[in-house]
């Protein structure tokens, strides 16, 4: 399979990249989604603007307050970063599940969020972690909170001539990710990301996001509300307090109000039934600090 014909540009800096994008085309970073789309002829942009070598867009700056991650930073670089694992464990846990080692060596975090795959691992993690996406465009720079970034399947608040430059994620005390692997694609059929701080030994500032079962990652407000203020010890034992169990059972209802997502392998209703179990696992992973877990066989 060959991609359709296109012109390839490799700008020397961000402003040149923006100028080129204003003339049409798509941003090429790691290419791990885009190249496959091109070969399947699902997209025919005519021009590719390769930002993969722009050093200003790459790298990790981790501190105790939070982490800045350049858009072209690879998943592998995030997984290998002690700073990412310590400050924003949910993000490291999700990045660890993307694709396979080869894909993680080239796929980039900015590309992943801009792609907004409903079954992507990073979107729910970025949402739970309260990430802010920094964007450059013809009118200058702006920031988009993760809460406003995802609009639907492969749809974001980004304009076509805008470029993701970096992500800024505040540090959290506990973060966990869990997913059910899609047996055909290896993507996340259902995923959940949980982030909170611990104040007076209780959950504070909880953010819980779900993916896979919806066209775009959404926050599970009901679950967030119920775990907020719960003593961490109550989440660490066997079985959750009844009201939290009930809130988890209702996680599927929260998805129904959104845009349920399914495919020929796993219907939307099947995914919503699975969701509570994965939210529960994500909470457990956040508590025990293991970060992540996966259900299902990969092959």
């Amino acid at each position, binding site marked *: *399979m*060959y*991609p*359709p*014909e*296109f*012109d*390839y540009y490799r700008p020397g800096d961000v402003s040149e990249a923006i100028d080129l994008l204003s003339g049409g085309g798509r941003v*090429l970073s790691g*290419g*791990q989604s885009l*190249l*496959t789309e*091109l*070969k*399947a002829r699902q997209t025919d942009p005519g021009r*590719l603007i*390769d930002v*993969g070598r722009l050093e200003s867009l790459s790298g990790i700056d981790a501190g105790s307050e939070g982490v800045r991650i350049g858009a072209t930073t690879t998943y*592998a670089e995030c997984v290998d970063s002690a700073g990412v694992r310590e400050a924003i464990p949910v993000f490291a846990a999700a990045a660890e599940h993307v*694709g*396979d*080692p*080869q*894909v993680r*060596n*080239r796929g980039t975090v900015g590309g992943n969020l801009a792609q907004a795959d409903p079954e992507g691992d990073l979107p729910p993690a970025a949402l739970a972690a309260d990430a802010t996406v920094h964007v450059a465009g013809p009118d200058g720079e702006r920031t988009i909170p993760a809460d406003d970034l995802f609009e639907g399947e492969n749809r974001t608040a980004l304009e076509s001539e805008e470029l993701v430059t970096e992500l800024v994620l505040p540090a959290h005390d506990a973060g966990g990710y869990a997913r059910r692997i899609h047996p055909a694609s*290896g993507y996340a059929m259902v995923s959940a990301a949980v982030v909170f701080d611990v104040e007076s030994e209780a959950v504070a500032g909880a953010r819980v996001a779900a993916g896979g079962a919806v066209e775009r990652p959404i926050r599970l407000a009901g679950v967030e509300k119920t775990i907020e203020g719960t003593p961490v010890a109550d989440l660490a034992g066997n079985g959750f307090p009844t009201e939290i169990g009930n809130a988890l059972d209702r996680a599927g209802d929260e998805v129904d109000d959104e845009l349920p997502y399914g495919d020929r392998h796993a219907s939307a209703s099947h995914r919503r039934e699975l969701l509570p179990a994965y939210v529960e696992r994500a909470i457990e992973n956040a508590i025990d600090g293991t970060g992540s877990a996966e259900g299902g066989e*990969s*092959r």
Partner: protein
Amino acid sequence: MTTHDITLTINGERETATVESRTLLVHALRDLGYTGPKVGCETGSCGACTVHVEGEAVKACTRLAVQEEGREIRTVEGLAGEGDGGGDVLHPIQETFHEAHALQCGYCTPGMVMATADLLENDPDPSRESIRESLKGNRCRCTGYHNIVDAVESLAMDSSAGEGAD
């Protein structure tokens, strides 16, 4: 349609090629005579096209040749030459795959071997679970994976096997 004159360093040799913008790395390599990397699923799933770019395992069907301009590429052809006997002696990974019956039709083997080399360079003593996880991006439709995992596991236990894999 635009074309690009690019230079790649492949297994230590400097190679030049004129490629279309859309030419995939795997096709450019094969056109240059490096037919070790195989064209399998072409969707980034099977890993038969796995090569190393600047020391990292990469699927050569999901990269444009022009993206890798100026970079160091290592294909399976370069692996055998790294042992003491030059190109005539198999690399320990290849030898072990042979001994452990880790291949049948052999189509996935170049990619499997290159993924294994990358794994052992990063983690010389991986667990069985870690081996399976690390070879997740490489499909084999013959062996059922058991012998492949066995081969890599025996390499992991043999501390000398990591040598020569960089």
